[in-house]
């Protein structure tokens, strides 16, 4: 599904964000990428959805080598990878329904299909009854659910969540993680980037630990190892 082969990412003049990263994520896996701030975990996520380009090495998603992806192909890649951020990135002037349908609108989907899909994903994230509300009328956890719903509308095979619980309290964070697990159970590969020890330990899923741009451990049903 996802394969990083000897991937490095350097920023001028001499910052090394990732160094010789080798990683293989199988279809349907739930993988937590953990590490301290500045360890390179977010850079790894950005490489996955082509927000950044690798300086060296090869990244393959499915059968697609995205290491040298053409700019015009990036939108195609991003429709296959759902992305969730810590700060939700919702449009404040649009309702929940409009925020989710926006992703389909800009991809040129027909109205009928939008009317079919959006209620389905809102049901998955538990916001069917709040589709007409604006982001400011929702709690942080609900806003993150909208963000997850938007990431799901293209029915991606991979969901990358970069610190999705970073702005949430413990209860809401737990709800979001449960939702991600549910999505994973439906067959979507989930890559969770986090530095939340409790969440990682509670998940009991594969944990890849990054420190100073290098993978220092990769354990099935692992735990948060960094002190």
């Amino acid at each position, binding site marked *: 599904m996802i394969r990083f082969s000897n991937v490095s990412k350097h920023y001028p003049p001499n910052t090394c964000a990732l160094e010789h990263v080798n990683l293989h994520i199988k279809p349907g896996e739930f993988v937590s990428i953990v590490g301290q701030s500045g360890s390179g975990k977010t850079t790894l996520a950005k490489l996955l959805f082509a927000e950044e380009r690798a300086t060296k090495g090869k990244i393959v998603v499915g059968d697609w080598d995205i290491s040298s992806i053409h700019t015009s192909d990036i*939108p*195609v890649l*991003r429709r296959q990878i759902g992305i969730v951020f810590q700060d939700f990135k919702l*449009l404040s002037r649009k309702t929940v329904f409009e925020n989710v349908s*926006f*992703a389909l609108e*800009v991809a*040129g989907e*027909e109205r009928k299909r939008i009317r079919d899909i959006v209620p389905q994903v809102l049901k998955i994230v538990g916001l069917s009854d709040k589709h007409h509300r604006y982001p400011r009328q929702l709690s942080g956890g609900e806003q993150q659910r909208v963000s997850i719903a938007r990431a799901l509308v293209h029915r991606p095979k991979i969901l990358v969540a970069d610190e999705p619980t970073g702005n949430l309290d413990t209860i809401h964070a737990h709800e979001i993680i449960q939702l991600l697990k549910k999505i994973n159970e439906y067959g979507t590969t989930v890559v969770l980037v986090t530095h939340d020890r409790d969440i990682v330990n509670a998940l009991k899923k594969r944990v890849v630990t990054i420190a100073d741009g290098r993978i220092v451990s990769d354990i099935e049903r692992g735990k948060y190892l960094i002190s």
Partner: protein
Amino acid sequence: MSFLLSVARLGKFTFQNIFRNFWLSFITSTIFVLTLVTINAVLFMNVAAKAVLEAVEQKVEITFSFLPETSESIVTSAQGYLRGFSQVRDVQFIPSDEVLANFQDRHQADEVILSSLDELGENPFGHSLVVTTYSTEDFEFIREAMETPEFSQYIKEQDFTDYQLVIEKIKSLNTRTRYFGFGLAALFSLIAIMIIFNTIRVAIYVHRDEIAIMKLVGANDWFIRGPFVLEALLYSFLSTLVMVAIVFAVFGALQIQMTLFFGDAWQGTVDYFRDNAFIIFGLQFATLALLSLLTTAFAMRKYLKT
């Protein structure tokens, strides 16, 4: 269907861009209109000046007054001689009686002149030839042609109405107006370029969140850039429409006064604009749109990294 839907959505985002920054859009369009109106004012002055010049040139003539004792056959021979030149538009023979009648008409209020004529008891005027040419620049040639001994000995005087000075003044004024107008149009064009650049830059800034999300969810590049391109085109189109309305409104409002002042030249100028409206305004729209698109492309390249 999908294509039409995408176009409709592009249109929706474009109108959102315009109305969310209404005053900026208004100022941009106003500067565009000012630029176009200035260009059209210069064009109008140019066409009107040409029409006035033509009208003046048609009225300009040289009158050769022959000595009273010159026979009609000599004068008609001179008439034929002059008609042989390609520069000559027409040569009119005025018999001495008519010359006298015209003179009396012109001076009917002047008792002294009329009584002097009575005292003479006979017609002091000879026959005349009134020569019109295609261009005032040919007058010198005609005067030299009539210096031939065959006719010069019979010519009492030649009356060259001094329209040349008027013509030169109109030409000079037109040239100066044109330079000033083009200078003004260039200045407005420069301002228009800077304004559209800033408008697109601000639009990109205002929509930065939407753009970021569009990129995040896999919007095509043309879907992100399209609204800004359409916005620039729409400003050009609306400004051209407003300008056309202004131009014809001005024509309508000034019809009576300008016809009195310019005569047929005014109507000729209005007709020129009306007959060539599609080309004149179409070209102006195309130029403005091209200018806007280039500026927008530059602004997007600088501020919109997709």
